């Protein structure tokens, strides 16, 4: 057995150990350590990616050598490795680029605890990406929820506590439903590992026992939908994303919800089986909710009065795209949805790294009147905000455009007139609405301010400014890569899908 095969498990274990280790280090050391660790994890995930591309198959790591129907497994293919590499890169950029705001928002003495939480979150992210066991999925889902709750309240103001309470209540609701669904699925199939479960599920469908199956799957889907911000459960987003510190906002918006959606995708695709899932009514409901979410999220974004709430609400629309792709139920639809996961992670993280900087040069305010002209005062932030906004709108060259193109092609390929009509209408409406609020904001940050706005209130060490610029530039580069060379990523996703089930 090649050594590479140990890497998926090692990424999880290393992050878990580091989480404990960080509590012992000082804040600066913990940060340096986390950055080194994440670089290492990216390299490991990259090695797994190269290995699976070369071998052309996925591999299963059996823990404790207990074979399939028992034991616990990790499975790595091209798709999982690609997700791990991209999401970890976004995480690293978030940690590096948000460092300056962490200094402002979180007490110096608690920095090591913050990085301990970041590492705990990384462990959960890795576990959700690699695991092949549905109950392991549940456990790490809860770990991720707890870690992200800590990341929200790290900035100790009243609003974050309230946001965290609301976030936790909804997440506990989601976890409860998910747990019940998992328990019922286990009751029906007698398996917790996803591959044997799929076999039992197809037997159940042949016997005609679809009703309980649909019910338990609906529980799982609603549970994960609540946790990831599916329409109509997205109203917790603005408080949660808007109030927390930059790194936390990046993690919550770009990574946490994506990990939940990836788990859902894995359950639908691997534990239930794509053929069974496509025939269930859940697919059509996901399509409908996705389309509705695309419109509703954008409308909420237009109506919001401040920059961070607008950016947060636009996540609801983007999550809608992903669910729409899952709801299409074709290979092209899944490819588009997975591509959108990456495109949105790359773009939204850039936005959430940039908005606090725009607000800082506007008298610490996110209100639209106050940020007028902030792009002139903080030139780098203005450029990066414009890049991310153009990507969100779907201007060619950027990742958002490629994602929308993939969705449109996937819809046409289904050949069902109603689906094509609904998806095209949703894409059109959503793009127009995106133009309305993102381009309006871009114009606003470059407009001439009514009065000479305040300059940067805090002296910024050069090093921190450079860290922000490098992270934002890396995210921009990834964005352009996804946009200009979308076929590379799309082909990798297709290759991953072929070995995923």
């Amino acid at each position: 057995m090649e050594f590479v095969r140990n890497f998926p498990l090692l990424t999880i274990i290393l992050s878990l150990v580091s989480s404990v280790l960080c509590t012992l280090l000082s804040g600066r050391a913990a940060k340096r350590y986390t950055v080194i660790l994440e670089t290492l994890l990216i390299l490991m995930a990259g090695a797994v990616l190269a290995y699976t591309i070369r071998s052309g198959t996925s591999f299963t790591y059996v823990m404790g050598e207990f074979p399939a129907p028992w034991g616990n497994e990790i499975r790595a293919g091209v798709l999982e490795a690609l997700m791990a590499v991209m999401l970890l890169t976004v995480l690293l950029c978030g940690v590096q680029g948000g460092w300056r705001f962490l200094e402002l928002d979180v007490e110096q003495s608690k920095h090591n605890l913050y990085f301990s939480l970041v590492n705990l979150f990384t462990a959960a992210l890795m576990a959700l990406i690699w695991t092949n066991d549905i109950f392991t999925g549940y456990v790490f889902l809860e770990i991720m929820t707890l870690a992200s709750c800590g990341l929200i309240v790290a900035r100790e103001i009243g609003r974050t506590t309230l946001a965290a309470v609301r976030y936790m209540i909804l997440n506990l609701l989601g976890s409860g439903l998910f747990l019940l669904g998992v328990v019922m699925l286990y009751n029906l199939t007698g398996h917790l590992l996803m591959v044997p479960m799929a076999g039992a599920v197809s037997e159940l469908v042949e016997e005609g026992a679809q009703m309980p199956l649909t019910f338990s799957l609906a529980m799982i889907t609603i549970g994960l939908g609540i946790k990831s911000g599916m329409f109509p459960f997205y109203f917790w987003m603005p408080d949660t994303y808007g109030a927390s510190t930059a790194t936390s906002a990046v993690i919550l918006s770009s990574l946490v919800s994506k990990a939940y959606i990836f788990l859902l995708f894995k359950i639908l695709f691997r534990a239930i089986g794509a053929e069974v899932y496509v025939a269930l009514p859940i697919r059509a409901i996901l399509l409908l909710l996705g389309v509705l979410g695309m419109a509703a999220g954008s409308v909420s974004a237009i109506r919001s009065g401040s920059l961070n709430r607008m950016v947060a609400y636009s996540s609801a629309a983007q999550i809608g795209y992903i669910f729409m792709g899952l709801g299409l139920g074709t290979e092209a639809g899944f490819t588009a949805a997975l591509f959108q996961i990456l495109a949105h992670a790359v773009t939204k993280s850039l936005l959430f790294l940039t908005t606090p900087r725009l607000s800082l040069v506007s008298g610490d305010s996110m209100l639209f009147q106050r940020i007028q002209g902030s792009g002139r005062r903080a030139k780098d932030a203005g450029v990066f905000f414009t890049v991310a906004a153009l990507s969100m709108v779907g201007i060619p060259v950027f990742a958002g455009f490629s994602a929308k193109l993939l969705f449109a092609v996937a819809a046409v390929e289904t050949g069902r007139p109603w689906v094509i009509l609904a998806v095209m209408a949703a894409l059109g409406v959503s793009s127009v609405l995106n133009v309305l609020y993102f381009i309006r904001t871009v114009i606003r940050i470059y407009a001439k301010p009514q009065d000479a706005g305040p300059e940067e209130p805090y002296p910024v060490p050069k090093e921190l400014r450079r860290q922000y610029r490098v992270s934002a530039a890396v995210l921009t580069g990834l964005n352009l890569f996804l946009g200009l060379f979308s076929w590379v990523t799309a082909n990798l996703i297709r290759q991953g899908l072929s070995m995923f089930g």
Partner: protein
Amino acid sequence: MIEALLANYEEAVAVILFVIGLSMLLFQRNLIRKIIGMNIMDTGCFLFLASMGYIAGRKAPIIADGAADASRYINPVPAGLVLTGIVVSVSVTAVMLSLSVRLYRRYHTLNLDEVYQMARDHQEDR
């Protein structure tokens, strides 16, 4: 219908507990009651699991007198899942309770309606 419910009374009770917990989590305005609701909800899941793993007339899967015959023992996996679930539930409860402490220190009430009202009154916008 009734017979089916009576035959599977443990599962029926589990689902009722789950629904009670879920509605408490949704509709109670007091944070502590919400947390209790969450615990009841989880307990429902655990009862469901535990009753699923039990087979009447069999023993706990601990090899005592050297008999490794699987037909004499109940299924140990659900028990393992319940234990794991309890650990998760305890830690989530701990975090929620510490959040409530922090919320109470700041707003001097645990009623969420009042807290939202107060937060709306002093809208602090960054």
